[in-house]
């Protein structure tokens, strides 16, 4: 039997086991929406903005490893989606975005709601396709899901002109795909792995630095085993938090621009650095010239050869899937008799303990004004460290990263690479949708939350009881901090004036609102909010306006040149 293109789209989604699609309708996708109406296997979630749809699909994916799916119309639908797509691209999140396009004969004629979606998104997708024949829909979607989720993951966009969704053809979903031009590696080269192990066993000051790749490849278990077995110190990037248990004694906290003193010092001073699924980002190592240390050897495990020796020359590259490589390493280690010199390791740990004693994350715990750090600590206590925490971008994001101790992967969900304000709330919706019944908190700022505030309405419609923790400092705090440090206290346009009454706003959307102004009320309010299991609670914490994020490595500086409290 022949099916229409639109029917085929739905059948493909079903074949892929997609349960939720986040989207927003419009002219070019009307036939596809018609098919949604006629079935109930794939649930559609109507967001209030296409950016929200893509972030929600993104959060959905980050919390589950499933491919997130979003559907938008042509023209403004597609352009609204771009921020979400770029956000996913920078953090290597597997997603498929289906966009409608004007009918094939109208392409190129400046038709109503026409944009060159494939052209606009090309630099921020792993790959994209324009479907020109109804016969290609099934094979293209199959490829899209495969590309999105294999190798280094990323968003893949499929642009489908409206007429193609009306045309008919026989539906056959390909069982498998193979592309002669795309063959991602999984296993690491055994010779390289052996060389790496040799180097590690000779290390006197080893350091394990891991990132998003550990989360993406579900290798937290292997990483933990490896670190424990070796008794090495371990740090995570912002994207890697939860890849190694934060409450484990081997953990030195996050590293980088706002990393801990001990993590940054150990990173700088180690003699063997083992980088695992991390990409030596500028927010992580600062200035590569300052980072350079001739007595340090670097091992780098990454699935993407272009991540290796991009910013920093490495000595032993291992191209492969983190999980496979770590499993091979563990096997070799357990059959080897060699160990690191325990005396050397002990003195290295002693040095690290000394750095730790600097207590770089200290803040005024007796303050009469709510300190943002304290809110996150209480959030950790109240949720017993077991929440999914999404975040927006700014100071609050850094405090969430520093003070919520993530013991499990896929619990910390934030936009690291693009740094997209507005990510937190829609991402939390996606997380809650994927994990009904789980505690989901969105740590945000009064600036960021307003970038996708409309999604409060989506939360109402789909009963998503997200807990919004707004650290309201009445400033674009991260901007204000830079202006204080580097622009002579000239707070140009970083003050948030005319803020809405968030309590009333939440109520207007049908949710619960709370304003918390005193430190002694913080914990009780959080408990009350999390007890409201069925409700979204918007918690507006009025925090210290002048608080800054420490430590801080100023731009262009090296990791050991931190500004400390």
């Amino acid at each position: 039997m022949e099916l229409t293109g639109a029917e085929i789209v739905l059948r493909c989604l079903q074949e892929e086991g997609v349960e939720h699609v986040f989207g927003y309708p419009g002219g070019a996708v009307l036939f596809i929406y018609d098919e949604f109406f006629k079935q109930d296997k794939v649930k559609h979630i109507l967001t209030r903005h296409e950016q929200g749809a893509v972030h929600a699909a993104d959060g959905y994916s980050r919390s589950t490893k499933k491919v997130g799916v979003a559907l938008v119309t042509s023209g403004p639908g597609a352009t609204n989606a771009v921020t979400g797509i770029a956000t996913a691209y920078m953090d290597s999140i597997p997603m498929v975005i289906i966009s409608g396009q004007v009918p094939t004969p109208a392409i190129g004629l400046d038709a109503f709601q026409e944009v060159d979606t494939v052209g606009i998104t090309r630099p921020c997708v792993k790959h994209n396709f324009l479907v020109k024949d109804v016969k290609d829909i099934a094979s293209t979607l199959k490829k899209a899901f495969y590309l999105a989720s294999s190798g280094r993951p990323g968003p893949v966009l499929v642009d489908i002109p409206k007429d193609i969704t009306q045309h008919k053809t026989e539906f056959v979903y390909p069982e498998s795909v193979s592309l002669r031009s795309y063959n991602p590696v999984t296993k690491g080269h055994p010779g390289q792995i052996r060389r790496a192990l040799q180097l590690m066993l000779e290390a006197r000051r080893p350091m394990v630095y891991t990132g998003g790749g550990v989360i993406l490849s579900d290798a937290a278990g292997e990483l933990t085993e490896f670190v424990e077995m070796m008794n090495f110190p371990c740090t995570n990037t912002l994207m890697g938090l939860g890849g190694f248990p934060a409450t484990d004694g081997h953990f030195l906290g996050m590293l980088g621009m706002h990393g801990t003193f001990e993590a940054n010092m150990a990173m700088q001073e180690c003699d063997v650095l083992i980088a695992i699924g991390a990409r030596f980002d500028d927010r992580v190592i600062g200035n590569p010239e300052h980072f350079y240390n001739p007595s340090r050897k670097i091992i780098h495990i990454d699935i993407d050869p272009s991540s290796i020796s991009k910013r920093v020359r490495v000595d032993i590259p291992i191209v492969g899937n983190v999980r496979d490589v770590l499993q091979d390493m563990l096997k070799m280690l357990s059959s080897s008799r060699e160990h690191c010199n325990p005396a050397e390791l002990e003195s290295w740990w002693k040095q690290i303990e000394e750095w730790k004693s600097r207590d770089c994350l200290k803040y005024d715990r007796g303050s009469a004004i709510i300190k943002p750090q304290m809110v996150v600590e209480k959030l950790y206590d109240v949720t017993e460290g077991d929440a999914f925490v999404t975040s927006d971008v700014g100071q609050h994001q850094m405090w969430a990263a520093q003070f919520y101790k993530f013991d499990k992967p896929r619990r910390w969900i934030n936009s690291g690479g693009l740094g997209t304000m507005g990510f937190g709330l829609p991402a939390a919706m996606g997380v809650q949708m994927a994990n009904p019944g789980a505690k989901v908190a969105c740590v945000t700022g009064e600036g960021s939350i307003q970038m996708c505030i409309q999604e409060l309405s989506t939360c109402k419609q789909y009963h998503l009881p997200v807990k919004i923790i707004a650290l309201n400092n009445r400033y674009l705090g991260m901007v204000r901090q830079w202006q204080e440090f580097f622009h002579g206290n000239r707070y140009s346009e970083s003050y948030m004036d005319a803020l809405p009454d968030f309590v009333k706003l939440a109520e207007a959307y049908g949710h619960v609102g709370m304003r918390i102004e005193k430190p002694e009320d913080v914990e009780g309010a959080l408990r009350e909010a999390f007890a409201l299991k069925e409700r979204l609670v918007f918690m507006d914490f009025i925090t210290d306006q002048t608080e800054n994020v420490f430590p801080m490595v100023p731009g262009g500086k090296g990791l050991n040149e931190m500004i400390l409290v």
Partner: protein
Amino acid sequence: MRHIISLLMENEAGALSRVSGLFSARGYNIESLSVAPTEDPSLSRMTIVTSGSEDVIEQIIKQLNKLIEVIKVIDLNDGEHIEREMMLVKVKAGEAEREEAKRMADIFRGRIIDVSDQSYTIELTGTVAKLDAFLAAIDRSWILETVRTGASGIGRGNRMLRI
């Protein structure tokens, strides 16, 4: 340093713009880029002449390999290779210039492929440097028009780029 990068990719709409987009997005130099289908019409072969430090060239090759439609990439400079570019140059060829223009074409082993009473069109093939040398050798004011294909390259002997 100058490098000649050769690659094979799927002969699909949009593939070229992915390559050129990559170069502009990442700020890599392109001296020339030429592309055409191969004997297998499903494949295109592209030659890119670029320049940069060894680190940059390494990144360019890795980034090209990362493009989904790219099948194989080689840096011709890694071994013996031959480079050729074709140029058509229209020069003044009135009474005064005719003889000298012909002589120059001969010296550079060019062929005159079109003649009018005021001009010659000369076809020249060679390395990029040779074509540059021709343009430098001939009186600037004689040159009416030039068009160049950009370099193509191929490995010597058993060095081959194929799937």
